[in-house]
């Protein structure tokens, strides 16, 4: 059970059951769609960019606890951040969930550190990273849907 609790931490379950910023964003000037064809997870990330700053961010979608809570926590983290800060957080988050982090300090990730257990579950890494890949596609203004495959 301890391993399971490491993956399914209370914060993760809370954000799965009560996702934050779960709506279409009125006034969004960027958005992107992402999906994981293997498990059917799909997500749309909306951004309201003010120059280089993410003024508002929201998402809609359906999927597993990991992908949906990762999306929810991502939106609460990125609001007010610059594009460069978002990219840096993505890099650290990705290193943490893939276990490639080396000496990365989980404290730098704040609440996002609850996903550290994902690295023990290689098949679930795509679930946790799908919202982030989708957010980056929205930042870039890409029109193509993001796929984990």
């Amino acid at each position: 059970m301890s391993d399971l609790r490491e993956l399914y931490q209370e914060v993760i379950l809370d954000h799965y059951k009560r996702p934050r910023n779960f709506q279409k964003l009125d006034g969004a000037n960027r958005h992107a769609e992402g999906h994981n064809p293997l498990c059917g997870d799909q997500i749309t990330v909306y951004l309201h960019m003010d120059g280089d700053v993410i003024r508002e961010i929201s998402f809609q979608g359906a999927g597993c606890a990991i992908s949906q809570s990762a999306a929810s926590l991502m939106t609460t983290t990125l609001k007010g951040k610059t594009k460069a800060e978002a990219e840096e957080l993505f890099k650290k988050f990705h290193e943490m969930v893939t276990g490639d982090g080396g000496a990365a300090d989980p404290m730098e990730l704040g609440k996002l550190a609850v996903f550290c257990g994902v690295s023990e579950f290689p098949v679930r890494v795509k679930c946790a990273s799908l919202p982030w890949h989708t957010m980056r596609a929205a930042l870039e203004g890409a029109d193509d849907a993001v796929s984990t495959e």
Partner: protein
Amino acid sequence: MKHAVHHRGTDDPCQECLVGFGPEKIREDFPALSVTVHGKPLVYLDNAATTQKPQVVIDALTRYYTQENSNVHRGVHFLSQVATQAYDGGRTRVRRFLNAAHDHEIVFTRGTTDGINLVAQSYGRKHFRAGDDVIITAMEHHSNIVPWQMICDEKRTNLKVVPITDAGELRLAEYERMFTDRTKLVAVVHVSNALGTVNPVREMIALAHKRGVPVLVDGAQSIPHMPVDVQDLDCDFYAFSGHKLFGPTGIGVLYGKAELLEAMPPYQGGGDMISAVTFEKTIYNTLPYKFEAGTPHIAGVIGLATAIEYVERIGRNQIAAYEADLLAYGTELLSAIPGLRLVGTAKDKAGVLSFVVDGIHAHDIGTILDMEGVAVRAGHHCAMPVMKRFGLPATARASVAFYNTRADMDALAKAIHKAIEVFA
């Protein structure tokens, strides 16, 4: 072969067998069933994806590669003759297993998918025309959809789909109404991998034959669970995979009626499928070699033949009866779990318990069950149209073989309860 063996080469149930059918003995024949996963004993319930292999199959592969390895139908030397004999003997064993009329109606393929592609690219390419129809069903695996879409796109042939009920049964009245004088082929799954439904293929074939339409049966999920007699079914093609029948991956069988196979052009060109080659003209080999270009999967055939021998010794009627009891037990157990819904509740089912649980995604169920040592499949089961029909992104699927026990079902139910607890 000391376990569960009472008689060779027959499927007649005998009292001794029914009494003597002991999964705990049978389990000893499968080394992979004793591994531990995350410190827990493996409960392997992903048999619809692939089955474990009995030691006799593993030994047969080792023996071939250590003592008999040689190419077939080539050399005059000793080993080549040994290999050829084992390879051809494998074909005879498959023919008997399916009760086909002739050895040359048995074509070795890479698996079910390869067999269906062979029929689509050879039979379909020759016979389909613009405006013709091919009938498939709404519960097909992608392997019995996409090969038909490819040839139908090319030939501008229509693909018609028999709808299914909420229980996951085919709407047979609609099937019957779908036939026109342009219907060229029916391709139907015998047992659905996503729902477990056993389709009434014998009746469906009779209906098609009344209109002169041939039928291909996708047997990937029926061959491990029940006796299959291709002459009794009167199917025109029947395809299955060795690895779902306790044999190796990469080997499969396409059965085809001789007169149909004879009239079909080759699928692939190369060695073994010719009898004479000049730059002006090539004369193709006779059946079944016409459809077996290149060096075949000799070890695979030997492994498959050994697996078939093993299954025959246990007896397919005994397997079917035992698994029906196990499935009924599992169905009752899972149905009693609050918030759990079985997907696929046909009256006639085999092997599969597909389900969803309120508030927990199938992917999360799969991970939590895995931590308990319970291996199930979570996802769309390569049957995305089935998932769409039921409005689901994915299901969790437990699928049984004759080596599974009621204790495995208990472990499954217990692990699902754990998942519900985690998400409470």
